């Protein structure tokens, strides 16, 4: 902890935490190249920083086997790097991103060919929320935080519980999660995340104009959004994923004791051990109670 007086923020300072999908399996099958995508995103991040002197941008890479911080606009390292030919602000980001992708690739475990493994969105969301909590601790007037998920790969149903936990924690600390989903179908996780936390979910119809979409939809702070005509939601996919096969289902069975979701009928709950449909005070329940 530094004893320096905390910065005095005005009430319109934004802290934007961006999670950037770097899943190589997704990008190698996607028609729009990652480099073009990144250059439009960087232009967008620049405009966020230009909108206000105190605005902060954090970028977290969402990899396929790991997640990591790649850019922090408040870090000292961004300034004073005069050696590179690239603009100093982003030479650091690109360098970190290169390192991150290389490390992510090394960690790769074999997977079934032909399928695209999901990106670890639950990890980058959790990290983003930890960072935002740190910003909340920074002083009496913390910057207004929001999260922007730039996601391309499809949802990983195995992350369901973790992503929901992150969404509820974000909702609890009033952090909106915006999502810009560029993959082919809609992402149910991000739809729910934005709906529950009061953020915006948007799927740009054309990626050539990505910068335009980003800057008109996601660049404004929460206060200004009230005056804008933002894209209307196209509905929210509230389907859950079952605990037994991690499949996305729209109808299923729910254990009345622990609320676990199953896609088919079971005799016994695999999560809490309750036996279903037996008379009250059956032997096992009474036994369990005596032990407790």
């Amino acid at each position, binding site marked *: *902890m530094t004893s320096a007086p905390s910065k005095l923020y005005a009430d319109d300072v934004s802290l934007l935490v961006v999670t950037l999908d770097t899943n190589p399996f997704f990008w190698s099958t996607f028609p729009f190249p990652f480099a073009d995508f990144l250059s439009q995103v960087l232009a967008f991040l620049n405009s966020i920083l230009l909108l206000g002197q105190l605005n902060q941008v954090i970028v977290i890479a969402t990899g396929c*086997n*790991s*997640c990591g*911080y790649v850019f922090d606009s408040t870090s000292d390292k961004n300034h004073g790097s005069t050696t590179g030919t690239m603009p100093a602000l982003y030479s650091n980001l690109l360098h970190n991103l290169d390192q991150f992708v290389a490390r992510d690739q090394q*960690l790769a*475990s074999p997977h079934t060919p032909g399928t695209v*493994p999901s990106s*670890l969105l*639950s*990890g980058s969301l*959790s*990290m983003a*929320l*930890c*960072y935002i*909590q*740190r910003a909340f601790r920074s002083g009496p007037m913390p910057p207004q935080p929001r999260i922007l998920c730039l996601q391309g790969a499809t949802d990983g149903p*195995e*992350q369901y*519980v*973790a992503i*929901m*936990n*992150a*969404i509820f*924690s974000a909702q609890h*600390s009033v952090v909106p999660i915006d999502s810009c989903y560029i993959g082919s179908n809609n992402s149910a996780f991000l739809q729910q995340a934005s*709906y*529950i936390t009061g953020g915006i979910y948007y799927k740009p119809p054309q990626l050539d104009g990505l910068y335009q979409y980003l800057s008109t939809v996601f660049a404004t702070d929460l206060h200004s959004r009230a005056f804008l005509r933002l894209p*209307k939601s*196209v*509905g*929210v*996919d*509230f389907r*859950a994923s079952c605990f037994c096969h991690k499949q996305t289902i*729209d*109808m*299923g*069975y*729910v*254990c*009345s*004791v*622990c*609320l676990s979701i199953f896609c088919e009928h*079971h005799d016994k*709950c695999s*999560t809490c051990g*309750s*036996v*279903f449909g*037996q*008379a*009250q*005070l059956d032997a096992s*329940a009474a036994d*369990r109670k005596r032990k*407790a």
Partner: protein
Amino acid sequence: MSNAAERPVNGDAEDDDEDEGGDLEAWERTYAEDRSWEALQEDESGLLRPIDNTAIYHAQYRRRLRNLASKAATARIQKGLIRYLYIVVDLSKAASERDFRPSRMAVIGKQVEAFIREFFDQNPLSHVGLVTIKDGIAHCLTELGGSPESHIKALMGKLECSGDASLQNALELVLGYLNQIPSYGHREVLVLYSALSTCDPGDLMETIQKCKKSKIRCSVIGLAAEMFVCKHLCQETGGTYSVALDESHFKELILEHAPPPPAIAEYATANLIKMGFPQRSAEGSVAICTCHEEAKTGGGYTCPRCKVRVCELPTECRICGLTLISSPHLARSYHHLFPIVMFDEVSPSSQNDPSFSFSNTCFGCQQSLNSQGNKPGLSVICPKCKQQFCLDCDIYIHESLHNCPGCESSRHSKSVTA
């Protein structure tokens, strides 16, 4: 100001209760939220600087976590997560007493509102109904339902009191409603009782026995003084009885009823309930809903089985009878099922160990883990993913996030836990 000047000597670390503002005088109360002078101490050169309380807070939090962990180990996760709770609010003359400020009634209104919100946060699939007692008659204010806003609105509109209270009338009314609920639900009554008497048409003891037979757990929070019959009711039906001393104590007592009670698992049968997870339709689409039988624009939900539109969740489909809920409702309680492990403390000695790779920043928030003077400060490590976290993140992760950022951002450790 002499009072204020003495406080920093003790600090507030050892006396946690003091923060509740319980023993403050009335004129001091507005300052209870922000007693900034307490957070100061003098350093060697006589300058005032903030007390570093983090280590103490963290120690308290670790103790709490350990308690929880040991409790969880003895009792399985069996909790009554589907609860049907009637809140009985006594609006007899006694509720207008001004020993609570501004009146008992106003305090009850305020705290019930907070309680209902907290209750639905912790018991997503549960139902609450409101009953009021006034002029010796019990009146059902709202039927069992899952929407906090409608209950709060109904209660706020009806906050006026007169006449006597009747515990028996209230219990009989609630008994009639609770006998109709499905067998997997937990039946509960929470009575907020201001009066010191009950004016009943018959034998209250009989009603208490009926409640016991119907497995309805009755709890009472008194606002005046202890009453034998209330105590008897709670003992017979397995509930809790308490009497509030002041507003903050009342708040504490009522919020104790928000988390799902663990010991009543045998009261209800475990069951698999067939449920549908409808999609929310696009803004601007028009459809006729089955609940109001009106054409509505946007914002409804579509039943996955028969595709009709309903306005609100959770509900039962009027056409096919499927229970419809939004999956986030369920997911709110999942952190009870999959709690994350406690992180191990990194002792300063292990940092000298060459085999241990000490990282300089917290994995979660990137804060430096070095304390002043570049010495390694206190930190914790996740036993699964071996990532290091600062103490603030440790608390946030276990109390609010319920995810380990390290485990979530590595595919390997995830496949192990799954």
